[in-house]
């Protein structure tokens, strides 16, 4: 078990390949804009994880990359929800949330944390906002009778992935400035593995969603 936990980092990186392979190689329907945005999110996440890994190997700080990824991840997920709702009346609200988040992120980075320290507040705010969007989407699904079974709705699985991932890592993000501190005890450092574990689970759920979208029966 201990060995498995020690390899979670690698498992998490490799798990990106699962949905990316489904996008590239599975036959079926072509991707819509929501799924194109999801593909972008997975690619950005994959590249960021790879860069972080390389930087860590050469003993450079990778916190700047994590910070940039936090910002990009939030904006891409916001875009995914916007494209999924596909309603002009939400455009203004999404733009407002996106702009406000960028402003808050930059403010926190410049005034409190700096760009080369982990911005735990920005990560926690992003997680909370995405959790809110996921819950709203789920409660909107209650009155949607166009798909009799929720499990057959492809976006249900993406939303579920966001919900599970961000609820599980919320407390990890809140304490991320402590957890990723180089002088901290290894038992605390290991908490970051929750992030890897839940991201791997999300990758599986993304893959299910892509397969559902491409109408391939499991």
């Amino acid at each position, binding site marked *: 078990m201990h060995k498995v936990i020690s390899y979670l980092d690698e498992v998490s990186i490799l798990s990106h390949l699962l949905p990316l392979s489904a996008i590239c190689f599975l036959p079926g329907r072509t991707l819509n804009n929501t799924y194109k945005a999801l593909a972008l999110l997975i690619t950005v996440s994959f590249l960021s994880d790879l860069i972080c890994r390389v930087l860590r190997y050469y003993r450079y700080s990778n916190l700047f990359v994590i910070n940039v990824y936090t910002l990009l991840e939030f904006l891409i997920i916001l875009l995914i929800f916007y494209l999924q709702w596909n309603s002009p009346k939400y455009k203004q609200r999404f733009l407002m949330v996106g702009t406000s988040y960028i402003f808050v992120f930059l403010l926190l980075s410049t005034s409190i944390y700096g760009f080369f320290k982990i911005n735990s507040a920005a990560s926690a705010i992003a997680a909370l906002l995405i959790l809110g969007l996921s*819950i709203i989407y*789920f*409660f909107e*699904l*209650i*009155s949607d*009778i166009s798909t*009799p079974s*929720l499990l057959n709705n492809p976006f249900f699985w993406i939303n*579920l992935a966001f*919900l*599970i991932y961000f*609820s*599980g*890592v*919320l*407390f*990890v993000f*809140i*304490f991320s400035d*402590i*957890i990723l501190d180089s002088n*901290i*005890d290894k*038992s*605390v450092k290991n*908490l970051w593995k*929750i992030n890897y574990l839940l991201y791997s689970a999300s990758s599986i759920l993304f893959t299910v969603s892509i397969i559902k979208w491409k109408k391939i029966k499991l």
Partner: protein
Amino acid sequence: MEKDKTIVLIVLAGAVTMLAIVSLVLYLVFTHRKRYLIQQNELLRLQSQREIENTKAIINTQERERGRIAQNLHDTIGADLSIVQFNITKYIHELKNSECNIQSLSNDVLILANTIESIRNICHDLFPLTIERQGLIGRIKQSVERLNESGKIRCSFSGSSSESSLPFTSEDKINLLRVYMEIVNNIIKHASASDLTIVSNINTNQYTLELSHNGAPFSDADALENMIKKKGLGLSSILNRTEIMGGSIAYSTENGYSKVKVTIPYKNA
């Protein structure tokens, strides 16, 4: 060291709590959605059932109206035209023998005149356009005259209501006239009455139309039984039209006289 343990504990407890909350949200979404879908299906079922009932009612009404037209045409115009056809055939034969019976031709012209009158009456009966001109009271009075002329029943009309005092729209008046005609039709057809008294009254907040006759007794229970057994389409039509106007209908029998009372409430402007 103690601080590190606390952080680990908080993060793990937080993660577990958050995942538990997510599970609860998912449970709520699934159960609410299930309930919502059941409610929607039930609504759709009721809606479709109501549509079917409405369609049936429309079809029944159409069929009944068609039947009535066919019966009226057969009993009145059909018979009269057969006589005219027979007579004209006879005259052709007589003309061939150079004999022309002027009196017979005059009789046929009279029959034709009666036939035209019958068509007019049928049309009036089917579509009471004249209600705008004659009014509801006028149409009831005209119907009383015709009933008396027919000799089948002795009929009288009285009441405090004048046409101008009726606070009803043309649509309501047509509905009331239909109700009245259906009741009279039932009294003649099923009750075999020889005497009919019609009273039309209006007071501050309601209009009443009472029809008393000496025919077969009929009560609210009889009306209900007939409607349940789906015998009385006319009774359903009377009830539906009365309910559309927010009114009620009561059947009763007292001292050998049966009474049908239609009550339509209204609000004073």
